[in-house]
């Protein structure tokens, strides 16, 4: 889910950037440092939407750098356990399938796929029901539930399930072909 959130960060700036455009320098450094990063608490920082305040700078002992506390608003994307997401399948194999929902990767193990769906290997590996009416393959859109998350320095990885009511394929690219 997306959130709008206010975060704070201490930004260090070299004295060569001091001048009329100090604030702009601070903001562009903040964007470079922060956008695209992720943490377990806030999830992915997708974009900075505004600066709330820039505090008074503090000269660091021994260096010329100055630390500015910057409060900023941003849009974050964080998956939660129990959350429902609609994700696009990126890879299918006999172990299950991988899907993507925004910046988040999700793996759905074959144990968490309904029992009536079986893996079919071939050019386009897929999971299909015995009557062939439902098919999960690359590019399919599935509604899944997050049951576990793991946060890395650069990505968030989730475990999902489609073995529940109202979960499963919502659009199948093969259906039109």
């Amino acid at each position, binding site marked *: *889910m997306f*959130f709008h*959130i*206010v975060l704070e960060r201490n930004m260090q700036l070299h004295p060569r950037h001091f001048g009329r455009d100090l604030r702009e320098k601070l903001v562009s450094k903040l*964007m470079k440092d922060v956008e695209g990063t992720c943490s377990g608490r806030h999830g*992915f920082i*997708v974009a900075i939407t505004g600066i709330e305040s820039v505090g008074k700078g503090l000269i660091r002992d021994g260096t010329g750098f100055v630390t500015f506390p910057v409060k900023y608003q941003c*849009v974050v994307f964080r998956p939660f356990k*129990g959350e429902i997401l609609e994700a696009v399948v990126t890879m299918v194999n006999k172990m299950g399938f991988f899907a993507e929902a925004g910046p988040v990767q999700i793996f759905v193990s074959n144990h968490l796929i309904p029992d009536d769906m079986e893996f079919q290997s071939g050019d386009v590996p897929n999971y299909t029901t015995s009557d062939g009416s439902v098919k999960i393959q690359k590019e399919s859109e599935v509604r899944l539930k997050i049951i576990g998350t793991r946060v890395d320095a650069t990505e968030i990885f989730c475990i999902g399930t489609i073995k529940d009511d109202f979960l499963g394929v919502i659009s199948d690219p093969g259906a039109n072909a």
Partner: protein
Amino acid sequence: MAEKGGKGFSLPKNGKSALKSPASKGKDDISAKSKRGRKVQFDPEGSLDTNLTKSNGKADQPSSKGVSGKGGKGEKVGSGSKSQTAKAPGPLELRVEQELPDNTTCLMDCEAADILQGIQEQMVVLSEDPAIKLPIAFDRGLTYAQRNRLYDNPETVKQILKPLKEHGVSDGELCMIANFAVESVDEVFALVPSFKTKKSKLRVPLENVLGELAKLRRPA
């Protein structure tokens, strides 16, 4: 040993040994297993004592092997039993508010799409500065929000959802309703397990809200 029992218990799906194991206890299960795995070293040995100690000794090995070598099986069993214990207290509930700081507002996908689109348009103007580049997470987030966008006007959606707040529905739950093309009240109850305790109270207002939202929804 207890774990082994668990293994035997969850195996039935997988086949042969499963047929035997449910009746047998942990120990028997192990010996059956180790027989399968290490028959040659095992069988010729005589007395009960040695057999016992051996079976204990071996019992550790196959189990560790099961985890490392046959990774899949070992892990699956583990996760299976875990999910059983996790499910026992109740279904997985979304706890957005408890896990995030106070100064946080949940965004519906359509709201997020508007914000991110606005930023992208601004970036076209700012893009002369090569130092400022949008990260991959931004592109993915924007694509996701646009793909899942169901409504053109987030403000109207908020107004429609507002009455539910009076019934104690949290912002996170409201966003869940707004993010999916939910067609029935039962679907909402299935997707948002935290509603289960107030089903009777929410049914009517939810029906009204879903009806209103369906009118506003973009054609697929």
